[in-house]
């Protein structure tokens, strides 16, 4: 979040071109990923418009507390990632490594909860083929979980390379850490949209 001062100080330095955090290529990738999620969510909204009843009865069988706990995990992960990038800017590379590992650990907790949630639903006899609702639930959340795993991988690779001293200079560290954290925030953001749409909206 921007404090008013930071927004102002950014406005002050307008003559200096605003820079994208991280690599432009990463942002292209993020946009493409967002497009995939957008199409999924759009289709889901469409299906919901057609089969409202099926969706409401389906939603009632989910486990919103698990979703809520997972939201907290992802937000905490994002906090660690953001703070790590911030500290790395100040030259503290050890804090970067630590922060990214903690963020990835949050991701792991997320995956653990998600998998046990799937286990409960399977035990109740629901799966991908039960109905259009369950298709969207299982497929969209699974696709998202795959992205959590990719995000974890990216964070860990950057942490590992930073620790090995594979980045030639501070600028490279900034680029890599900002790119990784941006991807992670994207994964987080998508969940923040998915969670209310799938679990909460009646």
């Amino acid at each position, binding site marked *: 979040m921007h404090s008013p001062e930071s927004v102002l100080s950014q406005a002050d330095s307008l003559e200096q071109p605003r820079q994208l955090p991280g690599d432009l*290529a990463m942002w292209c*990738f993020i946009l*493409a990923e967002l497009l*995939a999620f957008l199409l999924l969510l759009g289709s889901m909204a469409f299906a919901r418009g057609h089969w409202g009843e099926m969706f409401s009865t389906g939603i009632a069988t989910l486990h919103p507390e698990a979703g809520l706990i997972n939201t907290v995990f992802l937000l905490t992960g994002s906090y660690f990632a953001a703070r790590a990038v911030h500290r790395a800017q100040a030259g503290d590379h050890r804090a970067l490594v630590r922060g990214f590992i903690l963020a990835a650990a949050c991701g792991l907790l997320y995956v653990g909860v998600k998998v046990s949630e799937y286990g409960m639903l399977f035990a109740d006899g629901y799966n991908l*083929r039960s109905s*259009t609702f369950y*298709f969207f639930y299982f497929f969209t959340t699974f696709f998202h979980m795959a992205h959590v795993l990719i995000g974890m991988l990216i964070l860990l690779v950057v942490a590992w390379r930073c620790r090995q001293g594979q980045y030639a200079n501070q600028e490279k560290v900034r680029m890599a850490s900002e790119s990784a954290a941006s991807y992670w925030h994207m994964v987080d953001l998508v969940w923040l949209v998915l969670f209310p749409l799938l679990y909460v909206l009646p």
Partner: protein
Amino acid sequence: MKYASQAVAKPYFAFAMLLFVGQILFGLILGTQYIIGDFLFPEIPFNVARMVHTNLLIVWLLFAFMGATYYLIPEETQTELWSPKLGYALFWIFAIAGVLTILGYLLVPYARLAELTGNDYFPTMGREFLEQPTITKVGIALVVVGFIFNILMTVLKGRKTVVNMVLITGLIGLAVFWLFAFYNPVSLVMDKYFWWWVVHLWVEGVWELILGAILAFILIKTTGVDREVVEKWLYLIIAMALISGILGTGHHYFFIGAPEYWLWIGSIFSAIEPLPFFMMMLFAFSMLRQRRREHPNKAAVTWAVGCTIMAFLGAGVWGFLHTLAPVNYYTHGTQLTAAHGHLAFFGAYAMIAMAIISYAWPKLHGRECSSPQAQRVEIWSCWVMSISMLAITLLLTWAGWIQIDLQRLPGDAGALGYMQTQDAIMHVYWMRLIAGIGFTVGLGMYLYSFVVARSTREQAPALAVAQ
């Protein structure tokens, strides 16, 4: 040519062009048979001509990919090929097996060929694109494995670049998915399901990696743009290709008896498939804009840039046209599919093959590029072939539209029968045949440009010693 072993590429390229000519001759036969049903019957029935046309296409593209790899890998790894001998030996094995198979198609009735080659013991024949006798399929697998082994050994001892890593990943993927050609379950649903693992996951999956790598190589060489920039583009393109293409397989699972959820997955993910093709186009133009040198081989650049445009049109635009389930419900298996198949195959894979041949052939003959006269003929041939192929595509789209309108959109009672619809399309098929003749002229010009290049060899710049 920097490395002597790059010369292995020569016979592969030459043979690919020979098969290309064969493919087009059979295309003309097919185009004629669409109008005069018993043309060349009973010597060459439609199903045989079609099989020869499509199999020659796949095989000549494989020859071109192998040639491209033999040319590109020594230069990228900065070391001689592990075993040029193996490269030549595999060439002869593949070429002889290919010729024998085609002769088998033409000289023996297909059922008899199946019997002769022991299809009863291990049935894999009789499926579109995978018509080869089982022994030929095994032969292709062995040739590809030997080829990949040769390339892997070369990469292991040399420099590893993103381009050669992407290329080899694509080639290994090609080999792995070929294995599904041997899987032929009794259930028609299962058969079709895995048939697409070869067909779709090749052209909209691993082949895109091969395409991306060859394109990146040509652009690095002709524009002199930093590798780092090219590599980022390549990463992005292949990431998008795989994300969209793998699940995009679902666009073939709509109405074959697979679970219903494929309607959603197939539509959503294949809707993203045009993106990597769009990015290839941006990539090519952006590299040209940032170019650090004027490469004298204008023809190769024309092919490469043209390839990205035509691939985007054929795969991206014409693919998207019928990829959403509600649309595909009406268009499935019409001439619109053929329109898309032609432009996509030509734009993406035939044109990248000609791009790398155009770049490599003069170098393999000790010249930086062909003479300006030869290049002029070649660039003209590129235009003639591209415009003819666009014409074929538009005409088949028109034919497809008539088919959809008369045969698909009306309810059962009002719908025209298949053959009656064909009669209503006859005038379009005539025009398609004319466009096909135009394409053949373009191909003739292309081959003629090699003759010109040879006779005007003295006017072509000699190979720079330090490139």
